């Protein structure tokens, strides 16, 4: 643009005078929103502890073949053997190494947790954006479907669906993913309803941006924070869901190991009272995984939503 205006003319005087120190600091301090959230998150002790534990669980799941002392499905001579140097956590009633099964069980929990949430977050975001942005009949239809989904007894529907299409790792991930979206959709819709009234969205329309661009580049990034928090807690509940299904025999099919189906053995009173190595470790793992994720979620929520920045 070939125009010559005196640039100094329009620079506010205040910048030059009383704010010069602040300005100098700001110039060096180009902290993005993301950095600010990360900084606040890492100030949250429980959240950091949760992150460490959860990272360890993910590492265990990823490196299962390396870490695991034995093949999880190999049957050894001793049944229900107490912990020893060859079998750190003993063996189960079929004679398989509990430690190895525990390690492989992490794979199941992590993949169901993350997989299911990934599926329903995508569905929820798309439906929520459409409902919130376009409003009118689109909103009406999507929100009524959401209501219908939310009025189902969630666990029973999953149980029925899984028993119809057959229990397997993929199927339970898919079913949980397919049924989990209403909460996200509502959350997104709510945020969109307020964000779409913001002038920067109107400016986007006035600048001639396409609707998908406005939805995904201008509205969604500003609605992401609560979704992220919700999704984090969602991973925890998906892990519990998988464990419950597997406990009931509707989840991961034996002989594949899952923390849930390992707990099934605790149904017997003898196991419960005299063979704690069969049920304490898987129970503890579920507890640790869920707790660490919930701490991460808490930390994220505080980092994102608290207005009093440090």
């Amino acid at each position, binding site marked *: *643009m070939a*125009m010559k*205006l005196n*640039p*100094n*003319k*329009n*620079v*506010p*005087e*205040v910048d030059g005078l009383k704010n010069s120190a602040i300005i100098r600091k*700001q*110039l060096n301090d*180009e902290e*993005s*929103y993301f950095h600010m959230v990360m900084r606040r998150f890492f100030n949250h002790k429980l959240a950091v502890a949760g992150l460490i534990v959860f990272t360890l669980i993910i590492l265990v799941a990823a490196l299962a073949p390396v870490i695991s002392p034995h093949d999880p499905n190999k049957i050894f001579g001793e049944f229900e053997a107490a912990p020893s140097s060859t079998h750190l956590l003993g063996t189960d009633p079929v004679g398989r190494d509990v430690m190895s099964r525990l390690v492989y069980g992490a794979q199941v929990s992590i993949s169901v947790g993350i997989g299911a949430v990934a599926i329903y977050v995508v569905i929820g975001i798309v439906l929520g954006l459409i409902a919130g942005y376009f409003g009118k009949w689109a909103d009406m239809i999507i929100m009524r479907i959401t209501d219908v989904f939310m009025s189902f007894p969630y666990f029973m529907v999953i149980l029925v669906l899984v028993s119809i299409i057959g229990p397997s790792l993929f199927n339970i991930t898919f079913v949980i993913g397919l049924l989990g979206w209403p909460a996200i959709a509502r959350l997104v819709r709510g945020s969109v309803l307020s964000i779409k009234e*913001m*002038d*920067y969205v*109107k*400016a986007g*329309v*006035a*600048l*001639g*941006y*396409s609707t998908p*661009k406005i939805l995904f580049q*201008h509205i969604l*990034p*500003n609605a992401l924070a609560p979704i992220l928090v919700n999704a984090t807690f969602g991973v925890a509940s998906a892990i519990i869901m998988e464990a419950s299904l597997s406990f009931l025999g509707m989840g991961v099919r034996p002989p594949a190991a899952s923390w849930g189906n390992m707990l099934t053995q605790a149904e017997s009173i003898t196991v419960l009272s005299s063979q704690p190595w069969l049920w304490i470790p898987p129970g503890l793992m579920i507890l640790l995984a869920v707790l660490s994720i919930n701490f991460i979620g808490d930390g994220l929520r505080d980092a994102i939503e608290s207005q009093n920045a440090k």
Partner: protein
Amino acid sequence: MPVTEQRQPLLQVKNLKKYYPIRKGIISRTVGYVKAVDDVSFDIYPGETMGLVGESGCGKSTTGRSLVRLEDPTEGQVLFQGKNLANISQREMRKLRTDLQIIFQDPYSSLNPRKRIGDLLAEPLLAHKLATKKDADQKVNEILEIVGLPKQYKNRYPHQFSGGQRQRIGIARALMLRPKLIICDEPVSALDVSIQAQVLNLLKDLQKELNLTYVFIAHGLGAVKYISDRITVMYLGKVMELATTKEIFEHPKHPYTEILLNAYPIPNPHQRDREQIVVEGDVPSPANPPKGCVFHTRCPFAKDVCREKVPQLTGKDHLVACHFPLETVNV
């Protein structure tokens, strides 16, 4: 700038109406309408600044937003260079948007908080494929210089700027597409007085350099007087008076304009003893506007005919919608 009849108007507003339905009950039955804009017409000529003034809720912002089709009018037309904005295709409209821009009132909500200033300014060019990434970057540097911000600020986020700086970024963004017409929707109302002058001067300078046409919306007359060539006074969705700035300030014909002028403080204390017409009461609800002249409930000169008949906007260069324009009353 004198208005000559021979020139082609850049933008024509013809009988623009925007009614919002009032819905009640569980089946959302429409029980009435809020007449935000009710039969507004005016022309805007290239290079001029049209001021749009009135109290809050008089429909000036709705009118402004209709001009760039952020609102679809209930009735009436907005013609930009002869093209009816309501009739053209989405695609054509997107193209036309490069000529029509808007600057918002609130500099805090008009910039996407998640985008760096550089990206925010380059985006319009990239979205319309008017420049490559590198060119766009160059143009961002130029525009930042024009609005008086150092180009190092490109990597900063909106929350790191003051209100005045943000408003200048908003102006820069509106300029990126080199529009012909810019709707300034109360661009200085949210700013400190010292910053207001800067932004107004910037707008004025830009107009000269880039041959821009402005529709300048404001609720006070101060800024409008400074920047406008012509002024439209609105009240309850209707145009009360339309004339050049000089005429409006020196010979207001509508009692409402006179009242607005009186509400504007006089800097010189020796002139403060001038006779004042003071307005009483509040603006009536636009959902239930008064019969006849909409201003009669608050007009000190209202007579019987004002309560019955709607006055038409009449006059050649100085249009006024009043049964008893001021000069005839006073003489």
